[in-house]
């Protein structure tokens, strides 16, 4: 029972957070484009859904607060309250309050009561005084149609049935007709008394009159409906002129994809009045017919208008099914599934191997078919964890907005490559480092507007966040056009902090990368934004924990680029199987450039130095046998040696192995904590034979190998020839 509650709560929270994120991004869109009714609808939907969900679980605080917010949103949506930057900020603040309310449900953090009270008051203020605010209103939605003055004259068909109380309530029939005559010309009128009681039964004070009127007018349907507004028990249907059909159809087609209810679409377009809709809905409850059918039957809308509204509804549904219809799955279940699929792929390969020598066409066919299906399954399973980075990127709109407001800087924030896909886990873990980098760019990179103008730069700073794929990894770039890094300042600081020595000769890139050293901060004034203890070293550590790397490029006065390279860390990768001293190893295939068989001459060269001449280039070599200190298992060295050429960070390195076994599909599995300090491996995999094989992490292998070579070079300062110096340097990548 309790755990069920917990599960519900966690679903509520995770869904709520998603909605709030969407709300935030929609609010930002709205701020830059107040007429974007689709964004408006997204904000509204989010608030509405959160309120509904909170209602299911009885979280009163959230219900009450979102209710006020929702009420105001309705006013905004109807164009009564104009969208201003202040209003968006208020909604942002409200969003944060809801977030803290949800956090407090799981015991992390508390709701700031003062903040809540103040925000509630502000929301209520807007609600209470919409008209003052409406002066500056920028009408959208249904007002949009109302403002279209030049509408053609047409004939409205009005089916008016007065309520029985009409006389007693003191309504003057004469006055009603006078008002109708003011709107247009009644071209035809027929009185009906279909249900008038007999004289001996009639209550002469009750009204039983109905008219079918034709009114020629250029007015809006609502204007006619307004005449009957206060006649509570009066029923009327106004069919707009044929001439309006096209107009309504056009308005409907232009409506944003937000409203999925036919009635609302029609009301928004002006083809239907609220009251007509209400009557139809009441009737729908009684009869169970479709609202649309009732509306046509009652003579409220033309069938064509209804059709276009239905088309709109379907369009909306299709659009919303794209964005909302997700299935929430426990991540660990997903991981288990992916693991199982991985196992299946392995077993599939194993079966293929076992049946290879059996001469049975049908068996072979079945196995081939099975493996094709498995391959497809593998692709699908892989895709389950893959998400576009867009979700992460969008959050930074808020970061940029808040940071720039706080610092009084104008920022033009640009996002590109949001569609680039990566593993969800990586996406989640990259958020914090990126937040820091972006804040840093705005705080330390971008200058104050006045300073920028002095340097002939536009006052608005430019910060860009981009992502793209590059051979098996994802590259994320944070760029700004700020003042760039000051080499001298960095060097001085580094010397001061004892990170480098006075006379150390460092390349530009080495200097820039000093900013990632622990305890390094160039900000002279520790601001609220960055420099709150989490420095660039934390960023670097985070990136490295994802097996990625980070680099910085900068030009003083021009700007700074921070480039992050991350592995896609897919559960399943294509690998290349190699063997040395009877031990199998897997190298990720996307790292492999080519395979070489060493000629005797090259072997000799290799034995002398740690490199070979590859088509005129120096190819540093790592002998895996030596590097991994593998015990000798073969009595005789194999006749030929193989080199597998891998590329990392644009540089090529050869790995010397005994034999090559070709491509395999492998499931990367973590090695576990006890091997956490093991360098050169990213995990292990289980081969088709059922044996375990280590997966080589090329980048850490190369780093490790070059360190080893440097150490051995340092330990043996004598007897080094120049060739070896070259080789060790070229292995340092």
């Amino acid at each position, binding site marked *: 029972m309790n755990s069920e509650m917990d599960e519900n709560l966690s679903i509520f929270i995770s869904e709520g957070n998603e909605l709030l994120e969407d709300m935030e991004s929609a609010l930002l869109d709205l701020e830059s484009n107040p007429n974007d009714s689709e964004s408006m609808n997204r904000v509204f939907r989010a608030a509405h859904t959160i309120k509904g969900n909170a209602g299911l679980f009885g979280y009163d605080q959230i219900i009450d607060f979102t209710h006020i917010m929702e009420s105001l949103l309705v006013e905004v949506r109807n164009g009564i309250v104009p969208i201003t930057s202040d209003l968006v900020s208020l909604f942002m603040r409200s969003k944060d309050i809801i977030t803290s309310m949800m956090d407090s449900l799981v015991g992390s953090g508390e709701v700031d009561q003062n903040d809540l009270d103040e925000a509630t008051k502000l929301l209520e203020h807007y609600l209470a005084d919409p008209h003052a605010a409406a002066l500056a209103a920028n009408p959208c939605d249904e007002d949009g149609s109302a403002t279209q003055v030049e509408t053609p004259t047409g004939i409205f068909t009005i089916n008016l049935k007065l309520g029985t109380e009409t006389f007693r309530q003191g309504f003057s029939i004469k006055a009603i007709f006078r008002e109708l005559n003011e709107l247009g010309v009644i071209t035809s009128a027929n009185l009906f008394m279909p249900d008038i009681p007999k004289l001996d039964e009639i209550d002469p004070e009750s009204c039983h009159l109905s008219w079918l009127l034709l009114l020629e007018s250029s007015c809006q349907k609502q204007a006619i409906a307004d005449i009957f507004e206060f006649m509570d028990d009066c029923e009327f249907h106004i069919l707009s002129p044929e001439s309006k059909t096209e107009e309504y159809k056009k308005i409907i087609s232009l409506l944003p994809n937000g409203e999925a209810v036919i009635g609302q679409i029609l009301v928004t377009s002006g083809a239907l009045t609220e009251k007509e809709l209400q009557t139809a809905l009441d009737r729908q409850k009684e009869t169970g017919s479709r609202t649309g059918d009732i509306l046509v039957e009652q003579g409220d809308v033309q069938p064509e208008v209804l059709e276009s509204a239905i088309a709109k509804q379907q369009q909306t549904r299709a659009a919303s099914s794209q964005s909302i219809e997700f299935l929430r799955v426990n991540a660990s279940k997903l991981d288990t599934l992916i693991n199982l699929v991985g196992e299946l792929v392995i077993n599939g390969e194993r079966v293929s191997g076992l049946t290879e020598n059996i001469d049975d066409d049908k068996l072979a066919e079945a196995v081939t078919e099975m493996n094709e299906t498995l391959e497809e399954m593998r692709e699908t399973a892989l895709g389950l964890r893959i998400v576009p980075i867009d979700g992460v990127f969008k959050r930074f709109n808020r970061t940029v907005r808040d940071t720039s407001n706080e610092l009084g800087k104008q920022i033009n924030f640009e996002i590109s490559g949001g569609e680039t896909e990566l593993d969800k886990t990586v996406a989640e873990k990259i958020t914090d480092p990126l937040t820091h980098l972006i804040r840093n760019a705005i705080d330390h990179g971008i200058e104050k507007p006045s300073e920028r103008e002095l340097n002939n730069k536009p006052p608005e700073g430019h910060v860009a966040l981009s992502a793209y794929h590059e051979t098996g990894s994802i590259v994320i770039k944070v760029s700004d056009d700020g003042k760039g890094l000051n080499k001298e300042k960095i060097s001085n600081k580094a010397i001061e902090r004892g990170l480098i020595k006075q006379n150390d000769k460092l390349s530009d890139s080495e200097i820039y990368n000093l900013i990632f050293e622990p305890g390094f901060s160039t900000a002279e004034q520790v601001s609220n934004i960055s420099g709150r203890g989490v420095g660039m070293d934390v960023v670097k550590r985070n990136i490295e924990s994802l097996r990625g790397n980070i680099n910085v490029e900068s030009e003083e006065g021009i700007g700074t680029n921070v480039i992050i390279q991350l592995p896609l860390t897919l559960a399943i990768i294509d690998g290349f199987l190699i063997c040395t001293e009877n031990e199998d190893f897997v190298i990720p295939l996307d790292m492999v450039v080519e395979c070489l068989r060493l000629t005797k001459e090259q072997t000799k060269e290799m034995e002398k130095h740690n490199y070979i001449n590859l088509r005129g280039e120096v190819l540093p070599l790592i002998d895996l046998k030596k590097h991994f200190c593998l015990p000798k298992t073969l009595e005789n060295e194999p006749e030929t040696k193989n080199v597998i050429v891998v590329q990392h960070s644009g540089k090529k390195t050869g790995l010397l192995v005994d034999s090559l076994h070709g491509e395999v599909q492998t499931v990367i*599995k973590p090695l576990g904590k006890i*091997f956490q300090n093991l360098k050169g491996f990213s995990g292990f995999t289980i081969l088709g034979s*059922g044996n375990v094989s280590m997966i080589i992490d090329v980048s850490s292998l190369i780093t490790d190998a070059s360190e080893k070579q440097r*150490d051995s070079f340092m330990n043996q300062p004598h007897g080094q020839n120049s060739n070896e110096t070259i080789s060790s340097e070229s292995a340092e990548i």
Partner: protein
Amino acid sequence: MSEIEIEQLDIDDLTLTGEQYLLFNVAADTYAIPVTQIREIIEYTEPTQVPMTPDFVSGIINLRGGAVPVINLACKFEQDQQEITKRTCIIIAEVDGSENKRILGCLVDKVQQVRDIPEEAIEPAPKLGSTIDTRFIKNMAKINERFIIILDINNVLSLEELEIVEMMQENSLDV
């Protein structure tokens, strides 16, 4: 890699008074581990070497899709290496690590039996004169006039010990 069924072993004294132990041989000595710490016993399968790890790490094996590190107890206890025979087994044990339970394999020469060891048969570990590191010994038990070493498996396989991996790696740089 079929599991060896415990029933095949020679089980005696299945009284429920004392704790139950699995008795096994490494080199010349008999050792015991409480059965509650044992997940299963599997036939020997050749572990995949993990380069640059201490000698007592035989490597890793595939246990239903997961990698289980295997510790060579003879090596760990600095005893003579025995040849791999039909009776060589890997005991899959659960170890309480610093954070959570971990699964480790112990390479042993022979599994003897599962039996009770009555509390009165258990004696404190000797401070001196044992053939292996006393930190690995939890208690001694005297059964049929023979001494059995009850291992403190947590200590034997403790993560701290295994994280010597790091040290070994650094050592290997000097090679």
